[in-house]
Structures are given as C-alpha cells and as structure tokens.
C-alpha cells in the first residue's frame, strides 16, 4: 500500500502528522480492449470533432459552453478558483456520527500516524470513541476542497470524504404517493423483518461476477468452452424506453405544467 498524501490533522492546538492511504480497491478484472481481428491493443486518440484529425495535448484547452459559445479557461483561471493548497486537515467541529446520513459518504481513506504523531493520534482516536463523535473538517486534495469526516475504527482513524449538500439531488421530482396502511398489514411486515433480522456480516455477501469471469478466462486459455449462462432479458435501449413509458402511464395523471 502506498500513501497518496501526507500532511497533518489540525486538532485544536495540536497537529498530528499523518499519511493517507486508499481504503478501497476496485474489484474488477483489468481487461484490455483489442481488435477482434488480430488482438492488437486499442489505444485512444483525441481527435478534432470537425476535421477528424488528432489533436496534440499541448493544443487542448478546456471550455465551458455559455449559450452557444465556449468560454475557454487557462491554467491561471483554474488556479484562481482553486482553494489554497494546504497540508493540514483542519477539524473545525465535532458531530454525532448518527446524524450524518449515509447518502453523504464518499470514498474512505486510512490514516496512519507519522512517528511524531503516534501519541496525539491515539488520543484523538480514543477520545472520539469515548464521546461517540467524529471530526468534521476540510482539506485540499487534487486542487479541490474536500469535506471530510474523521472517525475511529478499531486501532485506526478513518478519513471519509463526504459530499457537499449541493451534490445531492433534489427529490421533488420523485413520485411517492401517500397510502394508508392497515395495522394488520404493518404487523405482518414487522414480523417478517424481525424473522429475517441477523447481525450484519458483510462477508456473507460476495461479488461473484469477477470470480466467474476469471474462471471462464482460465478455461478459455486452456481451450475449454464453459457453458454460457442463459440470458434472462434481452437488453436494449428501446426496451428501457418501453419500461420507462409504461411507468409513466401507470403513474397518476400529471397535471399539465
């Protein structure tokens, strides 16, 4: 595991020097794109949409469409808008973890103390455990200001990036009609839930797709042909649209806006 950032957690008057590690990894197989005919690797080119010719990196700029024209931004524009780079994750406040809806959670990272930070790291971790709180702060990674939570987990402190409020979509457009529920129905549902209630153990669940895919690859490499899984649904864009339309027809009549 390689650290992706090093800096410090600013906590009151103390700075805790730490390293940051990714806590998650993609579980997908690394497949390469090839030409069907000769298995040559596919590589990408950036081409001009008008001329079809390749454009060199140094000639590529980024722009934002305003009405019908592009406003082109250069490095200095990005710099002006970027928050000040800092080496410190400043904890601004402490909050109750239960108050944070899971919808805000983004990527998790592990924090590891540098030598000089071992003691304050342990102190912060244990104090957070004792109070049941987590630290809420900001730091700058890859030119973007991020909102982060720092929380204890076992011996570790975990840093979890969380989303800003404006990244969460409004739910106004969703249609959840009010319905009346009879007490008997509710009792039945509650009973069912209680019957199926267990302790949460994530290891009971496995993403088997990659495993199967890898098996298939190995078998293919040996020249065997594994039995194809039967397709359940023929998937196509027209079918998606059909489903969408049916849904819209089933919904109560919308008022003309």
């Amino acid at each position, binding site marked *: 595991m390689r650290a992706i950032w090093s800096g410090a957690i600013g906590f009151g008057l103390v700075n805790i020097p730490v390293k940051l590690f990714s806590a998650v990894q993609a579980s997908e197989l690394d497949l390469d794109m090839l030409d069907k005919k000769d298995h040559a690797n596919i590589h990408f080119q950036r081409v001009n*949409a*008008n001329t079809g010719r390749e454009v060199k990196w140094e000639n590529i700029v980024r722009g934002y469409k305003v009405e019908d024209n592009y406003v082109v931004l250069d490095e200095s524009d990005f710099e002006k808008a970027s928050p000040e780079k800092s080496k410190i994750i400043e904890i601004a406040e402490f909050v109750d973890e239960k108050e944070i809806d899971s919808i805000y959670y983004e990527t998790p990272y592990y924090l590891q103390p540098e030598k000089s930070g071992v003691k304050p790291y342990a102190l912060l971790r244990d104090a957070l455990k004792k109070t049941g709180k987590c630290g809420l702060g900001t730091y700058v990674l890859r030119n973007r200001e991020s909102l982060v939570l720092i929380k204890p987990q076992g011996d570790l402190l975990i840093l979890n990036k969380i989303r800003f409020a404006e990244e969460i979509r409004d739910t106004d457009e969703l249609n959840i009609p009010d319905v009346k529920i009879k007490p008997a129905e509710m009792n039945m549902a509650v009973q069912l839930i209680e019957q199926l209630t267990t302790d949460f153990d994530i290891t009971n669940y496995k993403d088997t797709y990659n495993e199967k895919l890898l098996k298939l690859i190995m078998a293919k490499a040996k020249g065997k042909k594994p039995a194809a899984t*039967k*397709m*359940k*649904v*023929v998937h*196509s*864009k*027209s079918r998606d*649209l*059909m489903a*969408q*339309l*049916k849904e*819209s*027809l089933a919904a109560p009549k*919308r008022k*003309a*806006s």
Partner: protein
Amino acid sequence: MKKKAEITHPEKIYWPDEHITKGELIDYYRNIAPYILPYMKNRPLSLRRQPNGIKDEGFFQKDAGDSVPEWIKTFEILAESTGKMVNYHVVNDVESLLYIANLGCIEMNPWNSTINKIDNPDWVVMDIDPSDKNTFDDVIDVALTIKQILDEMEVEGFCKTSGASGMHVYIPFGRKYDYDQARDFAEMLAHMVTERLPRLTTLERSLAKRKKNQIYVDYLQNRIGQTLACAYSARPKPGATVSAPLEWSEVQHGLSPKDFTIKNIFDRLEQKGDLFKGVLGKGINLNKALQKLSVPVQD
C-alpha cells in the same frame, strides 16, 4: 374591423428556376386552405420568412411583434429557454393564412399541440432525414420499417413526404399523453428502427459524427415548440414541392417526392381526398400498443 390580408409584391419571383411568383404561392395557399387549415388550426406557428424567395435562407420569427394586425389571432407562451413571453401567430382561417404567406412564409410550421391543450400533442412524428448520399428508396425502406413496427403494435400511422428529401410518419396521440411520453415513444421507435436497420440509420444528431450515407431518424421533433413542415405545406425547394400525404400502398421504391408540387397536388386531392385526416383522430392507446410489443421474458 376588416379581416382581409393585403397582398404585397405578388410579382416577386420566389422560385427563379421555375419562374414561380409570390402571387402563385399565395394562390396556392388560398386554394389549399380547406385542406391545410385543419392541421394548423389553434397551433402556434413558427415562421420561416423568405421574402426574397427560395434562394435566400431567410430568417426565423416566432414572436408576432407589435406590427401584427389586430384581426390576426396570437397566443402568448412562456419560452422556457429564455424565460420570456413569446406571442405566437395562430392561423385559423384563410385570410390569416394568406397574411402569413404574404410575410414570405413559403412553408408552414405549426406546433404538434394546440393552444387548448398545449402540453398534449395531437401526434407523434418521426422525421426521416436522409444524408445527401442516400436515395429516396433508402428513405422508403426506413418508413416501411416504422410501418412494420406500428403494425406489430396494431397502431395506425400516417406518412407524408417532407416535400424536401425525407419523409414524416405521424402517429395520432389524440392529446392523451404529454410531450415527455411522446418523446419517449418516438425515441423507443427510433431505437427499434436502428436495431432493425443498423447500417442504414443512425440516431447521431451531430452531422460530423454521422456516417456519410446514413439516415437520421429524428425523434427529437416531439418536444414542445418543435415544428416540421405541415401536411400540404409548400417547401422552398426546387420544383415548388409540397409535403404530400401518401397511402401506405404508394410507399414503394421508385416513388419520388418531386412528383408532388403546388401545381399538381389538387388533381391528387380530387382523386384521393385528404389522406391525413386520421392524424387528428382518436389517438392510439399507448398502453395497449406497448403490450403488443412486449416480448415475454425468456428463461
């Protein structure tokens, strides 16, 4: 208040190669009025004005502005893109039609919905828009594929030449569904067409990205405010062609859109009557149509 369109410069040449004048265009609209008006009535119009004839691109106009005579009906609609009110012309009678034609409107572009029920289109339209490399036979193949899908749904569709190089297929919606549903339905149809004719057709909007010989199946004409040339509209094209409704039996290889012009369409109307009437009919039952199309899930 006198309700009469003043005709100005009838001698102006509109189709120079054919020597057809503005006066002749006005005459065409005077005579075609009983046929075209049902498809324009109570619909906001987007004007394309070409006061210098077909060789000039002309300009587009939506807002009627201040100069519009009092006897011309107009209807205000909020343009969502700009947040401004747009006062559209609405043509409900022959004099209003001639007033619009006199502004230099060679073609008539009414909305898919009427001011009485502005959010519910009367029809869904599939716009078959070929590249310059396609033949009209290619266009016919696409139209027939749409017809085939409509038959599978047991839904009636109506087709017409666009008057230019393409064709339009209309499916009556009877103001029962909204524009989102119309668009989704059209998009679904368009995808089904490209699934059946993957080489000939594309849904790629960008001209640059389309292959040179592909036909664009345009389903995006089913958004509010989008317009196509109306049935029986003249087109600013060589030969003074019109958008001519067709019988499906006529939709065969060899048909040419150039066969229907402002000069000869009346003979056809005398023989066949208005083939497009059904477009304003009851409208399809979308639920039933979709069920017909649903293939049971295979196990």
